[in-house]
């Protein structure tokens, strides 16, 4: 019969080995992703052989899908979120005697945090998953191979236009999100207190700082870069039709995780007092 101590040592060893294997798997995955990003940069070497009009069409289509088609849902979500923030503000701020700070509350919560984050979530849900699925299907139906055998680098033709389109789309969507959220907040605030629209938006503008603007620009750049990169990376992975949903799901969950972590990191970088 095995001694209790050796059982414990054995299971501890197995646990360590299992944890080590998981860490190694993640490190290998991170290494593969980095190699993929490097190969995308290397594909710029064939940029001079590409006629920009063929790439422009892809960028334009992607902007229409990622940006323009996402506008209605972004407006609705932003308006409701702006309203909810104001409802919470109106019911809670008076308890602390700071009920005059609705504008600041909107800027702090909407413009700094919710705008970029929720916009990225919308883009991941709509376009990120669509990109992964589209590329995985193209790979399965050997469309990617067809590009390759035509001497066209699929990374340059597929990934880079989507990165460019996502950066533009996410930046514009964040601005639209903020505007819609402010409008939603204003409409809800009217039920409690009348503030002239000019005064409301003037206060909002005054509440904005250069840091807020810079943080939004950096977040939109980072999110615009990472959402298509990760989505395309996982889209290229499936080796059979059976694996397509597995990798699409992985693309969405990993992108979500990375975006939430990055959002927190950028906010900490910009707004922690020790950074000032």
């Amino acid at each position, binding site marked *: 019969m095995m001694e209790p101590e050796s059982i414990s040592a054995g299971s501890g060893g197995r646990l360590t080995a299992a944890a080590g294997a998981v860490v190694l798997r993640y490190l290998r995955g991170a290494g593969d992703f980095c190699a993929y990003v490097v190969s995308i940069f*290397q594909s710029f070497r064939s940029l001079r052989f590409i006629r920009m009009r063929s790439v422009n069409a892809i960028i334009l289509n992607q902007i229409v899908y990622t940006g323009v088609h996402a506008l209605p849902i972004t407006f609705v979500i932003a308006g409701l979120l702006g309203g909810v923030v104001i409802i919470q503000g109106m019911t809670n701020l008076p308890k602390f005697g700071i009920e005059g700070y609705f504008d600041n509350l909107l800027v702090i919560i909407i413009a700094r945090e919710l705008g970029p984050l929720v916009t990225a979530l919308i883009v991941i849900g709509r376009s990120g998953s669509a990109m992964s699925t589209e590329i995985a299907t193209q790979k399965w139906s050997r*469309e990617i*191979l067809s590009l390759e*055998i035509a001497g*066209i680098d699929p990374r340059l033709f597929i990934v880079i236009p989507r990165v460019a389109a996502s950066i533009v789309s996410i930046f514009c969507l964040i601005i639209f999100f903020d505007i819609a959220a402010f409008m939603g907040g204003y409409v809800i605030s009217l039920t409690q207190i009348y503030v002239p629209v000019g005064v409301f938006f003037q206060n909002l503008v005054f509440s904005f700082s250069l840091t807020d603007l810079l943080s939004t620009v950096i977040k939109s750049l980072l999110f615009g870069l990472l959402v298509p990169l990760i989505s395309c990376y996982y889209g290229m992975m499936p080796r059979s039709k059976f694996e397509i949903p597995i990798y699409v799901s992985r693309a969405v969950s990993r992108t979500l995780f990375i975006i939430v972590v990055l959002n927190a990191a950028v906010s900490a970088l910009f707004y922690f007092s020790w950074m000032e």
Partner: protein
Amino acid sequence: MLPLIEFIDVTCAADEPLNGVSFRVARGENALFFGIEGSGLKSIAPLMIGLEESYEGEVRYRGAPTRGLDYLAKLRHKNGIGYLHGDYGLISNMSVEENIALRLEYFSDYSPEEIREITGRMMRELHIYDRRAARPVELTGSQILRTAYGRAAVNDPDLLIIEHALVGHSALDLRSFMDMLRARTAHPDRSVVFITYDPQKFVDFADAFHMLYKGRIVFSGSRSEFLESDNPYLVQFRNVSPEGPMDIP
């Protein structure tokens, strides 16, 4: 005269391994590779195009080795060879015209008007001009084949590879396509390499026949030799017989 493409003792461990395969296809010659499933046929085209880079021996195109090409030279090499494969791989979100023009959009100095003109001419010859705005999902099987052929041949490559591409079409639908293929194979300066399980379909087009089995060439010969040789592998293949040197499960 330099062969257009040449394999010198090529061995590779791909899905379908090759074991010391050597052959040459002269400029203007049309070669046909055939055999049973798993014989190594699947590895021929990827090696010619440069998709498969892990092999021993040498693959030469226009006299120069294809191994060790830099990034841009590899892309140019792939762009210079036409390849029509059985999956066709038309880009689903592009129209017939855009699919055919794809190769000309890269590595060519044609103006957009010239590209439109060349693509238009190709679509007329293939009888798909009226479908130029259609997406692949809206095409019939033979229209997909013709579009894929148009894309492979639009830049008039000196080597065109046709791999298992004419399966599942009615002969009547393929009539005009076969006429076009016949004209191409008659061109003194252009070569077509056929890779197929059904060599009889192309017997009138090819000048040289190579049969593979277990990654080796077991028969090479001219059209008359292909039709008359008593090579036991060829006889077994021609007779569709389980009896012979090939182990048929």
